[in-house]
């Protein structure tokens, strides 16, 4: 009879299901990083002079910056010179219609469950697809255009809406923020751009799907979302990568601007290749995400389900500048095998009556290490600010770890701050209780884990909640006994 500990062990060794490689002809820049690399990228993308200057400035800042040292893991050796900073499918730099897309590429996305033809695509979800460095296809563009909504690749936005890009690029995450943000600013390849005009509610989910395919490359995409007054949008990003023995760097930047009475929901289902059971390979996911609630009553909501990557280092943040604005962060992070997650959020309360809510659920199995790191800062003008923080950790087996690092800095004594934290172990008792009702251990673990993460999963757009539940189950398959 298989016992539950053995099963838990097994989950920890479960293989990654999106680990295939697509065989496509690629334009790849040889590894290396210097001014010429940046000029090459900028030229390849036919960028205006101001953007090249902006990149070069970031690059010079990058050169003077050090890797951070405060994280709860040993920073791996980042050989920035060993990475190729540009890789793109070579058949065509830009796709006007699906017929021009390499059939191999289409097949890849079908395989991932993301059909690109609009007839077949998920009802009510517009998708932008970024394959290695280049945006491949954006669906439902016409329909969105009619409402004045701009949803396109970053490269396209630079060409067609330079004034918007110029106004907001780097306004929330300056390149000086950290070394990975600086690197991204210098070499970012593509990404998505969203603008929702005043008073418009975006009628469908917007979604970007990122896929790293080429070897030795990094992925450095940039997303910029601007919601004008009274606008609303819900946006989702997903990602996968092939299995490779070497580590690949993903250093993305996301900037979000939310004006008066507007609302942005940003959801992430992160499923980069986590490396094998021994910790070989896997994506280094060093991401900077930040949004600003610029106007009064603005709302920004981050939801993330993080199951992939060898190392996840990200702290989606909210600057609550407008009075009465609200920010929230809902997160589930799973680590198993040798995976490390150091993730959380930073909330800056600047305006009066600003509120925030943080719900973090960490699940660790195998030798996985999961840290929640959060900062809640209350500025001197933020009268009556409120924050609620809850960090729950679940341990599966006894070789994994859960850690919480909540920081509070308050310069206003009218603030109300609440913090709750729990740690639980998936107990043999819980599993046995479900077994005794005819439910096998694998399903029992799935139920317990999904129950644990429910509050966060419920925050995801409906179309993706079921996927995320399955993903949690799959990523833990074999971990419990």
């Amino acid at each position, binding site marked *: *009879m298989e016992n539950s500990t053995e099963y838990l062990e097994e989950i920890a060794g479960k293989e990654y299901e999106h680990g295939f490689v697509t065989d496509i002809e690629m334009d790849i820049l040889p590894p290396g990083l210097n001014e010429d690399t940046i000029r090459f990228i900028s030229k390849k993308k036919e960028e205006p002079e101001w953007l090249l200057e902006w990149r070069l400035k970031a690059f010079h800042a990058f050169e003077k910056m050090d890797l951070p040292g405060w994280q709860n893991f040993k920073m791996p050796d980042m050989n920035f010179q060993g990475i190729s900073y540009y890789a793109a499918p070579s058949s065509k730099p830009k796709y006007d219609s699906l017929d021009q897309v390499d059939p191999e590429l289409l097949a890849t996305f079908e395989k991932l469950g993301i059909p690109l033809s609009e007839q077949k695509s998920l009802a009510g979800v517009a998708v932008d697809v970024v394959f290695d460095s280049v945006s491949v296809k954006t669906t439902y563009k016409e329909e969105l255009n009619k409402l004045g909504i701009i949803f396109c690749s970053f490269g396209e936005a630079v060409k067609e809406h330079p004034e918007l890009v110029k106004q907001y690029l780097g306004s929330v995450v300056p390149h000086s923020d950290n070394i990975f943000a600086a690197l991204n600013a210098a070499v970012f390849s593509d990404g998505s751009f969203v603008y929702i005009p005043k008073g418009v509610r975006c009628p469908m989910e917007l979604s970007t799907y990122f896929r790293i395919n080429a070897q030795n490359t990094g992925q450095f995409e940039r997303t910029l979302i601007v919601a004008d007054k009274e606008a609303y949008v819900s946006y989702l990003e997903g990602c996968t990568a092939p299995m490779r023995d070497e580590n690949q760097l993903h250093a993305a930047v996301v900037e979000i601007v939310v004006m008066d009475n507007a609302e942005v929901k940003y959801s992430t289902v992160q499923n980069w290749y986590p490396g094998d059971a021994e910790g070989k390979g896997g994506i280094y996911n060093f991401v900077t995400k930040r949004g600003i609630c610029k106007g009064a009553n603005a709302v920004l909501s981050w939801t993330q389900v993080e199951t992939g990557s060898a190392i996840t280092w990200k702290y989606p943040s909210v600057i609550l500048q407008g009075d009465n604005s609200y920010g929230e962060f809902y997160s589930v992070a799973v680590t198993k095998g040798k995976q490390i997650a150091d993730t959380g959020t930073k909330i800056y309360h600047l305006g009066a009556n600003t509120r925030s809510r943080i719900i973090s659920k960490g699940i660790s199995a195998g030798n996985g290490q999961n840290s929640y790191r959060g900062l809640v800062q209350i500025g001197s003008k933020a009268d009556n600010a409120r924050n609620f923080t809850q960090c729950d950790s679940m341990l599966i087996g006894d070789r994994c770890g859960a850690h919480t690092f909540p920081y509070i800095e308050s310069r206003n004594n009218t603030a109300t701050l609440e913090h709750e934290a729990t740690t639980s172990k998936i*107990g043999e008792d819980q599993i046995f209780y479900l077994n*005794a*009702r*005819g439910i*096998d251990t694998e399903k029992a673990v799935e139920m317990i884990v999904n*129950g*644990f993460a429910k509050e966060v999963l419920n925050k995801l757009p409906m179309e993706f909640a079921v996927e995320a539940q399955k993903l949690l189950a799959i990523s833990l398959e074999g971990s419990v006994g």
Partner: protein
Amino acid sequence: MLSIKNLHAGVEEKEILKGLNLEVKAGEVHAIMGPNGAGKSSLASVLSGRQNYEVTEGSISLDGKDLLDMSPEDRAREGVFLAFQYPIEIPGVSNINFLKTAMNEIRKYKGLEAMTAKEFLALSKEKQKLVEFDAKLVNRSLNEGFSGGEKKRNEIFQLAMLEPKLSILDETDSGLDIDALRIVSRGVNKLRSKDNAFIIITHYQRLLDYIVPDFVHVLSDGKIVKTGGKELALELEERGYDWIKEETVS
């Protein structure tokens, strides 16, 4: 239906059940009483396949099938139901979804189609009524924040839904208020049939006024040391267990 022969079982090095024999036929209700630490819950655990118990000798069969060979979930699917002495809380898992999963896993094992949401809901309504189970508890997280008595009643609601062959009630009466005791007993009596059987572990004769057993066994130090009818429970209530211990020693 159930046949336990010379059962020896323990935890780690400690032997808890020391040669236990018990025969239960379809349609019967057996009560098991006995002092604290005698091994009553251990018997229930061994029957339902809890992993930390090791069976060192003896056999258990259910309708001719070797139970000891089966995983806990397969035993449940074969119709063994344990109403836990201490039901477990599982946060975030809704009571009703849990039951639906359990029900359909059992049906799958038996080669039956999964129940539709509508059928399931209808059945759930019917059984809630049968055991007078509060509808509010049906949609809450499984046992989370339930009072002690509510947890016990939830066990009986699950029992009513899953309609097992052999139900083992481990001290379901402790923690129930007087009304709840009557309601739960009434529920169990309605569920009794010629095709199923009950093993009722209890410390109190009172429960047996409501659920009238065919046999009363005394379990002491890992063995069944005395068996009688309903009147044995009354005698135990009056005299305690010492006289039986003396009887068995002499």
